């Protein structure tokens, strides 16, 4: 494990488990710079890596989501095939 932590290596992305999300909307209140709500109350992500100033709040948003649908991930989205 490398001890050098570059900015890129520390970057985290926000993802939503859409099968779990029930549109409580807490995430949009905690992370307004990255998340807004659509007309049905579901989160709209800006698709950007989490800003450094927002990392703590992003962790809280993930931990406080009532159904744990908000995910912080350092990985790119996986491919899906065979739809």
């Amino acid at each position, binding site marked *: 494990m490398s001890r050098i932590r570059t900015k890129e290596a520390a970057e985290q992305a926000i993802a939503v488990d859409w099968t779990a999300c029930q549109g409580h909307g807490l995430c949009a209140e905690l992370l307004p710079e990255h998340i807004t709500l659509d007309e049905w109350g579901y989160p*709209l992500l800006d698709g950007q890596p989490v800003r450094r100033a927002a990392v703590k709040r992003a962790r809280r948003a993930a931990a406080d989501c009532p159904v744990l649908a908000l995910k912080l991930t350092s990985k790119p989205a996986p491919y899906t095939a065979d739809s």
Partner: protein
Amino acid sequence: MPVTEAPAPARLLPLYGADNLPAHAALHGPPPYAAAGTLIQTLADAGLAGHGGAAFPVHRKMTAVAEAVRRTGRKPVVVGNGAEGEPASEKDKTLLRRAPHLVLDGLQLAAAAVGAGEVQLAVEEGTGLPAALQNAVNRRARAGIDLLPVRIAEVPRRFLSGESSALAERLSGRAALPRHPEPPVRERGVGRAPTLVQNVETLAHLALVARYGAQWFRSVGTGEEPGSMLCTVHLAGREPEVVEAAYGTPLRRLLLLGQGDPAQAVLVGGYHGAWIPAAHAVRLRLSAADLTPFGAAPGAGVLAALPADRCGLAETARVLRYLALQSAGQCGPCLNGLPRIAAAFAELAAPGGAGGPERIAVVRGDIARWSGLVEGRGACHHPDGTVRLVRSALTAFAGEADCHAAGYCRATDHTPLLPIPEGSRR
């Protein structure tokens, strides 16, 4: 690149009857298990891509599974996916009926290549296939052909049953519903084991590549898309027909464009595919290179020609209603968006139904906005595919939409072209 004008290849669907093991063995011999160790490389050389719709390179998926096996130390599961789900697609069911042993060979060879401990073949219930395939499996067991026993699994006949995560859920004893794509099925699928899900047609091609090699495989098709594919062709007034076509075959030949009844548009790639005006389609080939500029892809090979005297908006509205009902209902944007899109599209499809020009502008604005809201916001690609169909229809049938806005429809024949299962419910 030479355009393939040669006769259609007949690699997958020979003339002998279903479940005829001696005939199959006489034609192809036993599965070449000795080639399993180098099979992934051979598949890479052949350039075989998946035939379930996404055209993902087979060797990459198998490599990913093999890596997950090394990481987790668990033996993988291999699943043959015969749950085609799409009402307009018949090719997997036809293949399983006419050449089950080619698919079962492919299943065994893929299992040997990734060191699987378990093999399953998923087919739709109510098709008569599970019993026929069980017979085929039993005969192979008696003949000592298979390395691993094959479990035939029945899945519900629904649009999303064949989605790989939904399939893995079902085979793990849960409801056949798509799940969040992380971790992916290739890492944690059936019974939490790394799982290789391959479409049954893909497995049949794999069984041939293992025997006859990459060069043979590439002897038809184009350089970028080698080989052939099974297509389900829908022409008005005829039963749907399953044909094998080389990649690069002109669409006009498959859909008989310019012959008989003139077509106004063709549907390529099924209900998650795209409408292309016939004026363009007549010079396109069955290849991603030709179809991508139109937002389409060969996909799982569903092709339909809409005659000039039918209404493309009405046809699309029927399909959208079905697709909205087939939403698994798990993801908020899909659950909310698809029925609204379908209802708004139905307004456009009814001549004068949306009211005056102002109301039509509102309806079109709603469809565009909701399409943007559902796209990319689901566990599976159901919303994405549905939006693809919507957008292509609004472009291909823009002239018809203007007529509907003026209160009339140009169609004189209102017979539905595309099949929708009766009483479709999720």
